[in-house]
């Protein structure tokens, strides 16, 4: 029924095909903007404007909210180049990111795959796995404080089974502090991401697995050779989310538990931003760190996308 003329429903008018589409396109755009404009306005006001503000303040020297702003152009950024703490902070954050992604993604994928097989009890396991995601940062920090304290649960248990030599002051010891904080993220992260993988994997057609099994493949092979490659896009999403979390969200654990110490063991880039803004009275520099975090985020996200598109079918 290809016709060169289209009738506009509701009215009796007719237009040429081209004109119809053009007018339709404009109507569509208008509708789109109308529907999306409240959300866009909100977003502009509370996310984009403050973001721009961040860029602006990063070019100033500003001591405290009540102090006077001094425009110093890119001085904060040149300062960053010579600042040894930036390197340390990036290194700590980088360590956390790599450790968390390398541990969480494979474990979560395996557990998610296992869940998706819907063996007995999978529902209970799923509920348990998702539950850490409900706990607020403050509450989580309290829970792990009770575990990590020198007289906390972990050490008490170690002592009672005779492993007192392993009873470190987890948060106070330079070698264990960062690992201890990372463990908090991994603890909940595996569970949360496994449920996400479960949902994504459940969309795969069963025939896929059946066909593989007919060829004599075992689960392990199916999991890694079939399911995983198909999930690469999703893996990219999950990796991106985890990366973004560590970049700026993980700082709250540092704030609540270690203050960046001991020494600079848990001094991460997100914490550095908080420290400069709220503890050390250098708002301009802290926003410059914010700019650094922002661009780092963009670069890595693009990288992840590149990698996943290169490796997926």
């Amino acid at each position, binding site marked *: 029924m290809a016709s060169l003329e289209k009738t506009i429903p509701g009215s009796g008018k007719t237009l040429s095909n081209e004109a119809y589409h053009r007018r339709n396109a404009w109507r569509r755009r208008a509708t789109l903007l109308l529907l999306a404009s409240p959300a866009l306005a909100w977003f502009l006001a509370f996310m984009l404007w403050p973001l721009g*503000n961040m860029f602006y303040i990063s070019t100033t020297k500003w001591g405290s909210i009540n102090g006077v702003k001094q425009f110093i152009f890119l001085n904060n950024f040149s300062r960053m180049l010579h600042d040894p703490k930036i390197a340390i902070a990036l290194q700590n954050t980088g360590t956390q990111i790599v450790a968390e992604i390398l541990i969480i993604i494979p474990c979560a994928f395996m557990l998610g795959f296992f869940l998706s097989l819907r063996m007995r009890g999978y529902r209970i396991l799923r509920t348990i796995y998702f539950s850490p995601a409900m706990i607020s940062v403050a509450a989580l920090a309290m829970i792990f404080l009770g575990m990590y304290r*020198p*007289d906390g649960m972990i050490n008490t248990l170690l002592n009672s089974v005779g492993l007192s030599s392993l009873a470190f002051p987890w948060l106070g010891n330079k070698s264990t502090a960062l690992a201890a904080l990372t463990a908090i993220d991994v603890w909940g992260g595996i569970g949360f991401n496994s449920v996400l993988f479960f949902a994504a994997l459940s969309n795969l057609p069963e025939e896929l697995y059946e066909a593989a099994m007919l060829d004599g493949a075992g689960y392990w092979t199916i999991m890694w050779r079939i399911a995983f490659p198909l999930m690469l896009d999703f893996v990219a999403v999950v990796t991106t989310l985890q990366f973004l979390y560590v970049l700026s969200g993980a700082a709250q654990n540092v704030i609540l538990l270690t203050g*960046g110490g001991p020494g600079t063991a848990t001094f991460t880039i997100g914490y550095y931003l908080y420290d400069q803004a709220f503890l050390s009275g250098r708002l301009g520099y802290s926003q410059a760190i914010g700019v650094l975090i922002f661009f780092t985020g963009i670069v890595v996200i693009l990288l992840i996308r590149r990698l996943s598109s290169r490796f997926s079918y």
Partner: protein
Amino acid sequence: MNRKQIFLSISLLVIASMVLTACGAATATPPPPPPATEAPAATSVPPTAVPPTPTNEPVTLNIWHNWGPDDTKGAPLQSVFKDFMAANPDITIKDTVLVDADIPLKVETASTSKQEPDLVFSVLFDGVLNWADNGVAPAVNDYIKDWGLDGKFTDLALANFTQDDGKIRAFPLEGFTWPIWYNMKLFNEAGLPIPTTTDELIADAKIFREKGLGGPVIASGADGMGGALFNLIVQSQMTDAETIQAFGKGDWTIPNAIKGVELFVKLRDAGVFVDGVEGVDYASGNTRFFEGKVPMSHFGSWSYTDPAGVDLAPDVKLGGFPIASDSPWKSPVYYSGYFAKGVFVTPNGQAKLDAVKRFIQYLYQPDVMARFVPAGMTPPLKEVSIDKSTLPPLVGAALDLPNSGTPITTLDAIIPPEVGTDVGRIQQEAFAPGASAEKILADLTAAYAAAK
């Protein structure tokens, strides 16, 4: 959506938002200068409360502080508020309890939109040090003069709150002492007297460890309270001027500063601190000492009447920290000062100056101040009569501290705010075994240098 689109959209948005902000920010004005103080009103204040002339309109005074119901000074403060309001029916006090650490930031951010409280009870440290200069809490020199408080404060109290340029930042409120607490029960069992020199302390540490008690000194290595012990030990080797050089200006090449850090490392390596001290936090340290398990700890006067320590109090002796033989000080040292709390007046408070005046004059009467003494506070006034027999044991013992030790000043107003958190982290690292004196000194030097 391809990469080019992403890149374009991000850049467009970034630029757009920057332009928006720059336009908005260009119209932002600097904070207004503090209003001129009122002309002097009534004359000097009589020692007992006199009903003042009530004004016509009711006024509400907003006061922010951290002396909540869990604090030993919470109850006395509420009674002061109650009695003041009874005597001044036209003034209502609305007080808000906040977490201590939140107060400076919240006051500052409130101040930018002129919504700050009228009076703030705050510790003097970090950003608070700048309040007189940046207008958050203008200087109170004139008020002290005009409200009859001149000469009523102790010299040290005023000195602690006076800036280099003469501005007095706030009304000093809480004087504190911060001695070493000795659990005499444990010392007597071990047959040891209180150590007054570091050599004695090291010897005592060995004996305590052999008895299975572990290192004798507990400190919260994980947070600022332990850091104060680090400071105390390092300071015990320096004169006041040298302290300002090192902790204030960041010059750690002074011989005595190096000696101070080396002394700390020597004590640590000799096992003077409990094992795992770098992970002990304030609450843990408190608990372990109050349970009677640890011979020595470092608590301030705010803990003298802590309900958790009531059972132990009779066995506790207060004193300074042992000094080395080449220390410039004559006897064990302990911290004493008035930084623990000051009453700051904000521009909003200045707008209600009459009510503020009446409250301050009421608060700073000797018998009103005396209400806080049993809670462990040293009043900042010269004439406060204290009947020792009515005081809780440790509060009374603290009055004798000058007899056995030398008070020195805390570093709250000396360490620059920009380097405060770095120093805190270095202190925590210093408590862990393995940190050498050279490394600590190098870290300190780098921290201060980076802050410039």
